[in-house]
Structures are given as structure tokens and as C-alpha cells.
């Protein structure tokens, strides 16, 4: 069995799981864990989108 993800899907799945682990391990309280996890997820995906658009601009 083989799974084929496109680049954005792979980045989204990566961001989701990495953010869960970062949130749980880097903060003390449940509220802070959720907030930090969401922050990491936004930064991962936002960073991927910004880098993607930057490369598109450089290519033009």
C-alpha cells in the first residue's frame, strides 16, 4: 500500500502532528498547550505559504 500526498497536504499533516507534540511538551497548563499548539500550526502552515509565494515571486 502506498500513500501519495501532494506537497501542501504533506506540510499540513506534518504541521498538525508536530504542533500537537510541541504544544504538549513545551507548555505547562492545558490552556497554554492548546494556544501554543495552535500558534505552532499557524506558523508551520503560514511559513510554508509565505515561502511558496516567495519562490513564485523569485521565479517571475
Amino acid at each position: 500500500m502506498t500513500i501519495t500526498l501532494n506537497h501542501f497536504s504533506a506540510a499540513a499533516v506534518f504541521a498538525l502532528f508536530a504542533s500537537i507534540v510541541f504544544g504538549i511538551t513545551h507548555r505547562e497548563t492545558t490552556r497554554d498547550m492548546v494556544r501554543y499548539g495552535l500558534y505552532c500550526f499557524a506558523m508551520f502552515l503560514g511559513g510554508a505559504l509565505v515561502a511558496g509565494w516567495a519562490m513564485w515571486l523569485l521565479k517571475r
Partner: protein
Amino acid sequence: MANSTTGKAEAAPVNAMVVLAPAVGWLIPGAGHIIQKRWIRGLLLMVSVVSMFVLGVLMQGRIYGPNGGDILEILGFIGDLGAGGLYIVSRALDLGQGAISLATADYGKVFIIVAGLLNFISVADAYHIAIGKKQ
């Protein structure tokens, strides 16, 4: 004399959990938290690490062996090794041969390495809970 007595009094108590939690957490991702009754955290860590590792294998990512020789392969091996039991089982089943004809195999390789690295962080967190540094 007084200093040595104070030093002994301040030393952190060593119990079995200090050794057991990181060891079990490495072997079974998330289990280091579960045996310390952090059920939800443990399950979330387990789902995250196992899902990343399994997705990496399903994307035909490569799993590094211990005799890579090249420095990058050694680093990949160290990352993969972090997944503990998942790494041992997948090596025993001869999974993760890495199909270079597939573009996603490279994503898979990264997923597998990162799953191991995330489990290292999870093990450190289980240790911090065991010594009382974190709730």
C-alpha cells in the same frame, strides 16, 4: 559538614519512574505519559508519533540502518531510532526500503525521521514529569 548534609537533603528523590517513564516512552511513543496517568497527553503523543511514522512508511520513505557509513545516514539513523519500538518492528519486517522512483518517498523519509525526533522530545517530557519538574 553542614554543607554536605544540606546537599543530601536537596537531592531529588530517585524512584523507579525516573528510569521507567523515559524507557517505556521511547519503546512505545506516549506510554511514558500514560504510565504516569497523563492519559490524554499520552494518547495524543502516541497518535501523533505513530501516525507520522506509519504515514512515512506508507509514503515509501526510507528507514536508515545502523551501518550507514555516511554522516548523513548516521544522523538519519539516530532520528529514526527515536521512534523506539516502531523502528525495531519496521526493521524486523524489512519495511522502509525507500522507493526512489516515487517523489513522495523523500517526504516519507522526513516523516519517519521527524517522528523519531518528536518521540525524543516526548521522552524528555515524560522524564521531566517523573522528576517533578513539570506537572
